[in-house]
């Protein structure tokens, strides 16, 4: 039943992304709260709903964004897959895993969006996309990943109380 907390949390994350975070820019890029949230959720031990969160968040972001809805869905699923792989490799340093996911996930998501735009006929110079969007966005996502990881860890402990007893 506690899993239903995902609904308000995901909606809140997308609202915050659209209304506040998208106005705090570095060069032309801004942080991606839903991406960081999904990554942090997928990195928690015992959490088995990360795939559902990725699909729900992707659909909601696709609904609010001008990009095809399938792009964020696939990108967030890829981020969850990446997080699951990294969780096994660097399980003793969750924050390091979080930073790695924030870094790789940002590049992955932007690559998906860039590819989708190119396929739809929008010409964007790769150099501009990387220098003005992806790099500043990566930095902001790394900064955002610390507080988001802390909040999501507490949330995961509340949803899965067994985590505390171990």
């Amino acid at each position, binding site marked *: 039943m506690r899993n239903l907390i995902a609904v308000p949390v995901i909606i809140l994350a*997308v*609202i915050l*992304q*659209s*209304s506040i975070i*998208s*106005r705090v*820019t570095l060069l*032309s*890029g*801004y942080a*991606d709260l*839903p991406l960081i949230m999904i990554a942090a959720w997928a990195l928690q031990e015992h959490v088995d709903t990360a795939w559902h969160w990725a699909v729900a968040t992707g659909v909601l*972001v696709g609904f*609010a*964004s*001008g*990009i095809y809805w399938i792009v*964020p869905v696939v990108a967030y699923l890829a981020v969850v897959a990446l997080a699951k792989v990294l969780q096994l490799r660097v399980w003793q340093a969750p924050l390091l895993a979080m930073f790695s996911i924030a870094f790789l996930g940002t590049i992955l998501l*932007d690559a998906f*969006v*860039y590819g989708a*735009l190119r396929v*739809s*006929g*929008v*010409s*964007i*110079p790769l150099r*501009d*996309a990387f220098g*003005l*969007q992806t790099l500043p*966005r990566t930095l902001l996502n790394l900064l955002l990943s610390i507080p988001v990881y802390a909040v999501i860890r507490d949330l995961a402990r509340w949803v899965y109380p067994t985590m505390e007893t171990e």
Partner: protein
Amino acid sequence: MALALGGYFSGTSNVVTSSLINTQEWFSSRFVALQDLLTAPRDITTLRQQNSELQNEVADLQAQVIQLQQQVGETQVLAALVDFSRARPENTYKAAAVIGRDPSPFLYYVIINRGSNDGILRGMPVVTDQGLVGRVDAVIADAARVQLITDPASRVNVYLQNAEEEASLVGSLTGDITLELIPQDSIVETGDLVLTSGLGGGYPPDLIVGQVVNVRSRDFDLFQQATVQPVVDFNRLQIVLVIVNFKPVDISPLFPTP
């Protein structure tokens, strides 16, 4: 007594009097200092209380000032929009507030708080009192998504007022807008006004878009390019107007499909 009345003791009396006054002054000042010292804690308490009350009052007044400044700003924006709509009585406008931006920085879209319930339809042009903003891209009941002219996928047919030449305005990843397809033989100068041409049926004609700030003309290019400074500040979009009586024309069926 007679000597005193005659003024013979005036020097002596002055010395005595001044000594007395100085002594009294010394005692008085010490007493006042001592009194201050003894009553100071009470005063400090009172002063602290007063200070706290005043600080609260200042905070309340500052909050009021911010609120009023915000209201004044909104009123000014609304007044400008009303003036704009009065100046163009042929159009019917629906005012909407910008409530969000696209979650992806690759796209330049905004979300407005008016939707199909308010008569907003896909393709309707969106303007401010300054000029063209974009057009409605998607609509739900109480909200709509607007594609800005700065979006990389946006393309607007425009004409240069001074050069009397038509061109195509495209957005970019950085939010800059550029004029393309300007013939090499046309004379484009910095400061030329750029307006919508209405060609293609996507936008009504004669909406102000911006001014040319830089022209790039190379001999080996087929067309000239020009950078345009938009008249609308897209970072500070708060309230926009949707032209609800404009019906965009879909000319895509006219193009042959391969």
